[in-house]
Every structure is written in structure tokens, then in C-alpha cells.
């Protein structure tokens, strides 16, 4: 005689596409789990089953048996239910008799561990303030050392290159020079032209109130030559070329290309970093000069349409107003900006992880570090220029 206990959920009649249901009956050797219906995920087949669902087994009960005669259809959800039933049986001190299960279900159930192990956790250790400060300090010192070493190593590589002893491939240098220079002319030109035009427009509107419109030539010329063109060009190059360098190196890291270079003993500084740093360091000052001239041209175009001065008069006023030292100052700054952007981007790329997401993170980080670094360096240059009376 069998006795039905706590049918939950209620048994549905066994019919195609019937809702999955189970009931627990008392069998010869212990409880018998009777399942029926279409046991699929879309049909609500993921039904929990815990040890609490098994009533205390009577004395002499040895196993939880299965009756699957009423099953019309099944998928993963049925296996999930069986897995939980098996664990519940173990917790109740019963063996799980799977003879009554379809053979494929038995095979899948055999793959699953009797008791799932708890998920592995990341190695996360919560640091206190002291540890965080120490970590940050050590990290910063370490990073400074690494970047300084990279800069030195690259400089040494550049010296070797001057003597024709570098392992840098000329083809790589030419490609990087082309990408950092001529390829960037359009965007550098457009941005600097617009900046020069905006400066002239705003300057003219304000200077007109004091009948000092002619000084717009000085405003545009000095601003472009001394600050704006160098900074804007550097920001463009940090976003455009610095990000690309970081992404390229991070991808190489992910593809084990960097590892391959190291195994062969090919110095990364010569092979990867030197062409990148050299090309951006050389091209930035030239782009700065180009950007300054285009910026002045932008100011000229706006001034010609808004003020009463001849083109020749505008140029003469500009040449008289902007001293050569402004260009020299901007030129030197541009060189350092370029070197910094390239060095930071290469370092960020080398430090990246090995996944696709890490490539994106490296590119973003290189751009952010590049831009913030440029502004910080410009501030230092401003203080130095003031101290030197430039």
C-alpha cells in the first residue's frame, strides 16, 4: 500500500504539455518520488526540492526511489530537479535509486557532483588605511622607477640607433612616424584652425570695446604659439596616438607576442617602445608648429571678416607681436609632451591584463594619464618660464 504525503505542487494529470509535478509516496524500501508532466524550462520545470520535502523516513527505509512513468518530455530543468532530489536524499540519509530514470538522465546525473562545492572566490583581502597608504606609496615609487627605467632604456636605445646599432626596425619607425605625423595633420589642423578662429572672435568682441582690435593679432599669435597649440595638439595626440599605442601593446600582450619577444631575448624597449616614443617625440614639435600656423590662420580668417585691416597689416602685426622665443618655448614643450604621451601609453599597455576588456581599459587609462599629465607638465613649464623670465 502506498501513502501520499504532502503533494507539492499538486499532481496534474499526465498528459502532453501538462505542468510538471511531483509527489512523494511510501514505497517498499523508502519514499518513492513520483514525477509527471512535461518537465521543461519553458513549462516551469525548474522546481526546487530540498531535504525538508522528504518526511522523516520510517525505520528500515534505505533509499529514495524514482517513478518517472508519468514524464512526457524533459530537458535540463528535470536534471536540475533530480540533482536536488539526489542531494536531499543524501541529507536525509537515504541512497538515491536512479534505476527508474531514463538512461540519458542517468548519464547526465552521473556527471554532476553529489554535493556541489562552494564557488571559488577572488583573492580579495580588505585592506585597512595603513595598508592602503603603504601599498599606494610603494606602488607609486615602483611605477616611477619602472617608467624612469623605461625612459632611460629607450634613450639608450635611441643613442644606439644614432650609431646604427639599434635593433629597432626602420620599417616600424617609418610606420609610426607616418601614423603620428602626416596621418594626424587633418585633425590637428581642423582643431587648431577652429581654436584660432574662436580666440579671434572672442578677442575681437572684447577688444572692440576698447578700440584695441588690432591687438587681436597678438592675442591669437601669442596664445597659439605659447600655450594653446601645444596643449591642444598634445591632447589630440594623447587621445589619438597614445590610446592606439596602449591598445596595440595590450593586444600584443594578450596574444603572447610580448612573451615571444622576451623569450627570444629581443629587448621590448628597442623593438616596441623606441619606434613609438621616437616617432611621437619627433612629430609632436612639428605638429605643434603646423598647429600654431593653422591657428594663426584661423584667427586671420575671422579677423578679415570682422575688422578693418589689410591682410598684410595683420601679418606684420602678428610677426611684430609674437617673439621667436614663444615658438622655441612651445617647441620644447611639445617635444616633452610627445615623449610623455608615448612613454605613458607604452607603460600602460605593458601593464595591461590579457583580456579584451583589459585592452579597452589600457586605452582609456593611457588617454586619461596622457591628458592629465600634459596639463600638469604645462603648469610646471609655466612656473619654470616665469622663473627664467621667458
Amino acid at each position, binding site marked *: 500500500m502506498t501513502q501520499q504525503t504532502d503533494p507539492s505542487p499538486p499532481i496534474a494529470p499526465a498528459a502532453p504539455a501538462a505542468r510538471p509535478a511531483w509527489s512523494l509516496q511510501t514505497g517498499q524500501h523508502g519514499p518513492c518520488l513520483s514525477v509527471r508532466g512535461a518537465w521543461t*524550462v519553458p513549462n516551469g520545470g525548474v522546481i526546487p526540492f530540498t531535504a525538508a520535502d522528504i518526511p522523516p523516513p520510517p525505520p528500515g527505509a534505505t533509499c529514495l526511489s524514482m517513478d518517472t512513468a508519468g514524464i512526457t518530455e524533459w530537458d535540463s*530543468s528535470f536534471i536540475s530537479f533530480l540533482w536536488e532530489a539526489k542531494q536531499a536524499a543524501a541529507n536525509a540519509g537515504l541512497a538515491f535509486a536512479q534505476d527508474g530514470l531514463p538512461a540519458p538522465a542517468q548519464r*547526465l546525473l552521473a*556527471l554532476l*557532483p553529489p554535493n556541489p*562545492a562552494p564557488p571559488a*572566490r*577572488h583573492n580579495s583581502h580588505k585592506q585597512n588605511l595603513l595598508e592602503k597608504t603603504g601599498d599606494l606609496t610603494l606602488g607609486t615609487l615602483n611605477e616611477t622607477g619602472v617608467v624612469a627605467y623605461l625612459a632611460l632604456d629607450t634613450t639608450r636605445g635611441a643613442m644606439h640607433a644614432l650609431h646604427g646599432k639599434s635593433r629597432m626596425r626602420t620599417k616600424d619607425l617609418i610606420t609610426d612616424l607616418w601614423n603620428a605625423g602626416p596621418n594626424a595633420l587633418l585633425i590637428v589642423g581642423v582643431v587648431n584652425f577652429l581654436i584660432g578662429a574662436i580666440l579671434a572672435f572672442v578677442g575681437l568682441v572684447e577688444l572692440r570695446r576698447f578700440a584695441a582690435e588690432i591687438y587681436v593679432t597678438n592675442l591669437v599669435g601669442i596664445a597659439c604659439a605659447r600655450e594653446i597649440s601645444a596643449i591642444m595638439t598634445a591632447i589630440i595626440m594623447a587621445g589619438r596616438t597614445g590610446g592606439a599605442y596602449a591598445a596595440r601593446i595590450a593586444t600584443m600582450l594578450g596574444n603572447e607576442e610580448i612573451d615571444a619577444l622576451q623569450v627570444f631575448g629581443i629587448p621590448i624597449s628597442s623593438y616596441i617602445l623606441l619606434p613609438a616614443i621616437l616617432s611621437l617625440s619627433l612629430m609632436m614639435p612639428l605638429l605643434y608648429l603646423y598647429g600654431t600656423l593653422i591657428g594663426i590662420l584661423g584667427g586671420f580668417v575671422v579677423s578679415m571678416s570682422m575688422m578693418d585691416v589689410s591682410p598684410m597689416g595683420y601679418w606684420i602685426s602678428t610677426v611684430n607681436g609674437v617673439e621667436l622665443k614663444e615658438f622655441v618655448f612651445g617647441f620644447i614643450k611639445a617635444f616633452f609632451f610627445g615623449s610623455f604621451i608615448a612613454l605613458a601609453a607604452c607603460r600602460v599597455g605593458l601593464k595591461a*591584463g590579457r583580456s579584451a576588456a583589459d585592452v579597452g581599459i589600457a586605452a582609456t587609462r593611457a588617454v586619461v594619464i596622457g591628458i592629465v599629465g600634459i596639463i600638469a607638465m604645462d603648469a610646471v613649464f609655466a612656473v619654470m618660464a616665469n622663473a627664467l623670465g621667458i
Partner: protein
Amino acid sequence: MVESDTLISVRDVELSFGPKIIQQNVSFDLKRGSIFAVMGGSGCGKSTLLKSMIGLLPPTTGKILVGGEDYWAQDEHRRTQINHRFGVLFQSGALWSSMTVGENVALPMEMFASQPPDVVRKLVELKLGLVGMEQAIDLFPSEISGGMRKRAGLARAIALDPDILFFDEPSAGLDPITSARLDDLILTLRDGLGATIVIVSHELPSLFAIADDGIFLDANTHQPIAQGSPRDLRDHSTIPEVMAFMNRSSTIPPTDETKADQHV
């Protein structure tokens, strides 16, 4: 209605990249519940054929019938529906690196199965449990080994209970023991899930162990030159290229590509 014994039928398919023909005159039937191997040397177009079967690359000519439907004649919406019958294990696992292993398996369910989060979580645990990866549910792909990534990729492939599984070089890069375990797992999943499996590989031990039908693609003639189970081809084929491949002989006739390489 009695279901046809043939699940996928490839009919006179030609695959090409622009003017370059990769394979032509490819025809075979894939029997329900079978493990079908696409064999051939490197560069013969095995993975390209797989891509055309899973909807990533349309064939230049010919038909691929899935359950009697001409796959590439369907509109994109219908093709996506058919794709839900497919599970694909890519060569590298192709796990999404920004997601945990569990999230990788859960994503197809969340997108297409419309189940509440607790149900999805339970199914994810099950799928990972089936491949012995339940512990790695909260780990990122970068935190697990290559073999584990393969198994996690397999768990993702079976996320939607597909009835056709495609494996691209499942044993590539794995040690023999891990490879043999993966073979066992594939066999068990085939029997357990009742899935039909297409496996692209040139790992002979794996092919002999699990495949019961297959096709051999030749890189020289750009067409299939033999059909049958890998074991049968090994034991009975008289085609020199197939014999050389199956017996790991070094006297494989050079392909056009290798000839071209030699002249560079």
C-alpha cells in the same frame, strides 16, 4: 508525424572568399544523434565550413538544410530562431572576458529563455556542474586555465539545451588527459542531451574515439575527397591524402598554399 533521420543536409555548397574558392561540391547528411567529424589538414576550410553551418558565413552556392529548412534562404529573424537550436564551442572557448563564467552561461538564457534570475542561476549551476565547473561560477575567464575555459565554453554552448552542437577544434591546446576527458564529456552529453554533434578537428585520437561519421576536405582540390567514420577511413581508405592524414604520415602531397610558401 515521424521525424526525418537527417537533421542537417549540406547540398553542393561552395565556400569562397572573393574569387578564392575554399571548398566546393560539399554535400553530406548529418544523422540525428550522430557525431559528425569535419576532417582535413590545416587551411583546407574546415572552420570555414563550420562558419557557414552556424550562420556566420553564407555559402557562395548550394544549400544548407536544417530540419528540412533552407537555412540561408530564411530571413534574419528566422535564422536567429534556428540558431537557438545550435550550441557552439569555439576553438579558444571565446568566453566574454568582462563577465564571470556564470554570467557567460547565463547570458543566452537571460536573452532568450525569459526566466527569472533564480531559475537562471539554478540552470547555470547545473550546466557548469555537468562540465565539472560549478566552483568557477564567480571567476572571470582570465582566472581559469585553458582547459577550464573550454569546459566553460561547453557549458555556455549547452545553455539553451540545443539539439545540435558544433565544436571547433575542441581538443586543440589541451593535454591528452584533459582532451580524453573532454571527449568523454562530449559523448556523455550527446547521449544525455540527445544532441547531434558536428566536430571540426584534426586531432586524430579524439576523432577515432568519438566520431561515427565524417567528411574529409582536401586543400589541393578544394573539395571533399572522402566520407565515412574516421575509423573506417583509417582502416579502409585507399585515397593517398586520407591515408597519409589518418596514419600521420609525413608524405602528404603538398598543397597549393605550401607550394606557394616554398617559393617565397
